[in-house]
């Protein structure tokens, strides 16, 4: 590879762009979090609002990931192994949470389950609250992360065709056996990849839960919402300190993602 002027210029531009756009913001987070030293940092993290926000974030993320993963597998099975009327429509609908603004997503739920919402009577009958309450936050998180596992798994299944499953069925294997022994091994890496994407998105969800939450501190505040509240209250160090929790989790997920990607492409050959 001839290292002429173009080589140097392009690499300089590319690397400089990445450093300015990505590395600096990361550095700012760390710098601002520790600006007052170690004590303010740990105080911000051990504050009970922080702990409660962390618990809520973990809860919402966990539920969203579990439900959407199961949904993703079931939907992939239904939409790629069979042909039925409306399957194309459903496949497109799955993409919707992906393509609309999270604020609009939150709006949808507020309109449906809120005080003036048309499903409000149902909600009241069930004795729960959705808007301005934890169930709403969980629901909003489930909505915005719904497509992830389905979208990564479906292309793999579509590319493969149904021959192996049909052969197994002819030999008398039951549904779960076919799925676990034949289908799943092929989608293993796509499956893991989808879960990682789903988790990252769920943890960081902000727009939709902003609408639903009502920001009742200690009750309906997730970590991203807490960060907003702290920052707007000029508690800068606290805001950045809490941010580091999410940044560390995000970096762990990023590393996992890279590892899975490498294994996946090695398998594809």
């Amino acid at each position, binding site marked *: 590879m001839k290292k002429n002027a173009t080589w140097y210029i392009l690499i300089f531009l590319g690397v400089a762009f990445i450093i300015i756009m990505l590395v600096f913001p990361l550095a700012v987070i760390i710098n601002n979090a520790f600006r007052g030293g170690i004590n303010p940092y740990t105080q911000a993290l051990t504050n009970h609002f922080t702990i409660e926000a962390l618990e809520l974030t973990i809860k919402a993320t966990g539920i969203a990931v579990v439900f959407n993963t199961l949904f993703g597998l079931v*939907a992939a099975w239904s939409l790629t192994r069979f042909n039925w009327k409306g399957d194309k429509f459903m496949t497109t609908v799955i993409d919707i949470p992906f393509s609309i603004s999270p604020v609009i997503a939150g709006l949808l739920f507020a309109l449906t389950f809120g005080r003036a919402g048309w499903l409000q009577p149902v909600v009241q009958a069930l004795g729960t609250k959705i808007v301005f309450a934890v169930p709403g936050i969980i629901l909003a998180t489930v909505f915005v992360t719904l497509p992830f596992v389905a979208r990564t798994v479906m292309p793999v299944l579509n590319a493969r065709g149904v021959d192996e499953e049909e052969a197994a069925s002819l030999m008398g294997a039951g549904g779960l056996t076919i799925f676990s022994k034949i289908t799943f091994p092929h989608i293993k890496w796509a499956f893991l990849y989808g879960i990682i994407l789903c988790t990252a998105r769920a943890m960081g969800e902000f727009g939709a839960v902003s609408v639903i939450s009502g920001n009742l501190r200690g009750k309906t505040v997730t970590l*991203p919402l807490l960060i907003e509240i702290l920052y707007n209250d000029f508690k800068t160090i606290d805001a950045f300190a809490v941010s580091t929790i999410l940044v560390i989790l995000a970096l762990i997920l990023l590393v996992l993602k890279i590892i899975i990607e490498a294994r996946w492409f090695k398998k594809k050959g």
Partner: protein
Amino acid sequence: MRKTKSIIPGFGLSTGITISYISFIILIPFVSIVLIAANMTWNSFWEAALNPRILAGYRVSFSCSAIAAMINCVFGTILAWILVRYDFPGRKFIDGLVELPFAIPTAVAGISLSSLYSDHGWIGSLFMLLGVKISYTAIGITIAMIFVTLPFVVRTVEPVLQHMDPEFEEAATTLGAGKSTVFFRVILPELIPSLLLGGGLAFARALGEYGSVIFIAGNTPFETEIVPLLIMSKLEQFNYAGATAIAIVMLVISFMLMFLINSLQIRQQKIIRGGETT
């Protein structure tokens, strides 16, 4: 329904669950929009969706998203090029770093960008010396959008560059073309479908972006308010009708973009698998 029953088990159960889940979580909430919209008169709808402040919001959102998408097209191509064609120390590291905006929560990105480009921030202060204010301006909004949508173009252009048949460039070289002619006349046209896809994805994402933009934007009416913020403020005032009207306009645009992007995505898959594109 279908003519023949499939021999693969689980049709009823899986399809039933799929339809119910999707309906409950996605389709039913959309009904609200329809109900609210039905209750509005045409006049009140258009007034809510198109009053001057909202129009300013559309202008800010669309222009900043478009500029951010275009800047990412240029730098995304440069990044894809050096990651695929060149070898240099730290290449793998940079390749991994590209995914960062997808992993970082938008609120975290929002406050850190706001701090970085504020008048006293590391980069913001440098620009203040030049007399350019970034935070609380449209420039700041655009920068936040560039951050959030950075990976899109890189990731759509990379596979096309990787799979490109070297013979096109060799043919151009034997015909006497210099390196820049080869790039602009032969390689770039091959990249355009993937640039459109990546740019389209970036544009669509930037339009709806909330968390990473609101902190740096300053949210000054008519100047730095983005559409998602306008929807949010209507909601805070319990003006559901107003919020819905704006949301409907954005949804229509989102669906049109989604449609366009899907057809571009099909084309992209064909290119990567080596099929004809014209």
